[in-house]
């Protein structure tokens, strides 16, 4: 299964970025092979609709689960349509977040946990 983790950097020591739509990178982690790659988030500087665009992008990458800090309402609608499971409230570095995810320590999120524009720092 492919898992996307919102990341402040490009490796497993980077921290989980709390923002879904406006994080700088996604770590795409493959739970079967244990391999990963870092993808730049092209919508991090979008004028608007960053969460929608980001959800579209990770859906196009056939990601099945998302680990992040928070998800807003628009991104939530797209992720739900794509049947991507959302695990929010993650903190710390990417490696620890993956371990916690594998151990089943994150609960699946069933609704948006922040309002629109959370990731814009307002």
């Amino acid at each position, binding site marked *: 299964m492919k898992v996307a983790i919102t990341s402040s950097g490009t490796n497993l020591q980077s921290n989980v970025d709390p923002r879904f739509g406006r994080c700088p990178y996604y770590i795409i982690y493959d739970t079967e092979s244990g391999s990963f790659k870092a993808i730049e988030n092209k*919508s991090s500087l*979008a*004028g*608007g*609709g*960053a969460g*929608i*665009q980001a*959800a*579209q992008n990770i*859906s196009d990458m056939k990601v099945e689960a998302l680990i992040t800090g928070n998800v807003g309402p*628009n991104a939530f*609608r*797209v992720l739900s*349509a*794509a049947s991507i499971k959302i695990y929010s409230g993650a903190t710390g570095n990417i490696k620890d977040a993956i371990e916690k995810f594998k151990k089943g320590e994150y609960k699946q999120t069933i609704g948006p946990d922040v309002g629109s524009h959370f990731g814009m720092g307002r």
Partner: protein
Amino acid sequence: MIISVASGKGGTGKTTVAVNLALSLNNVQLLDCDVEEPNCHIFIKPIFKNKNTVFIPIPQVDQTKCDGCGYCQEVCAYNAIAVINKEVLIFPELCHGCGSCAYFCPHDAIKEENEEIGVVEIGRKGEIQFIHGKLNIGKMTAPPIIRAVKKYINKKKTVIIDVPPGTSCPVITAIKDTDFVILVTEPTPFGLNDLSLAVEVVRKLGIPFGVIINRSDLGNKKIDEYCTSEHIPILMRIPFSKKIAEIYSRGDSIVEVLPEYREKFQRLFTKIKQGKN
């Protein structure tokens, strides 16, 4: 001649300048393009004669024609469309009504339906023709209303435009195609910071501009130093005055209570015209 009054920072005195300049000149049109919170009418007290509704076209997908190709999502510049598992998701609150999705849809599967986003009101006060726009509560796209207000521009008149604060799309829509921009600022760190952002925008658009310093005897001299080093003309200074604050608080105009200001605003207009020609 079309003069727009902008600022970067809010609350520096755009409306004060726009209203008093309009009241000091002949054959004037005053357009309040701050459609999220128009307030020129409080000072002008116009009688409105006409009201027009402003719509934007919002896409609707005909599921029988859509094959989920995703082209609409690709062409949407505002991220208002997602296509997941061949299903089109539309986010109307992000749509600017540009029409690209419907235009480019290869299957003619997108129809547009008009959605009301606000109104334009047209009125008069004495010799001044007054037009303003009002964006409906909960709507996010000001530019279509600003464009609807600017359609009423009569180039035979002197047109004064009160611009929204900031440096984003509504500001650019309001100052575009005007002949001169007055940037109103105040001698504070925020005033200077936002002035410099506004200057970048106006320079990019290539419109001649100058600065008015409001509450000019407060704060420091940094605005003066900035304008000197950037070769920006300071067109006028309005002092920090309890009298002016009182006039403003009552909803009156400075030039009607303090007639000496009428001449100051007329001189401002002459300076702008000379600089322009």
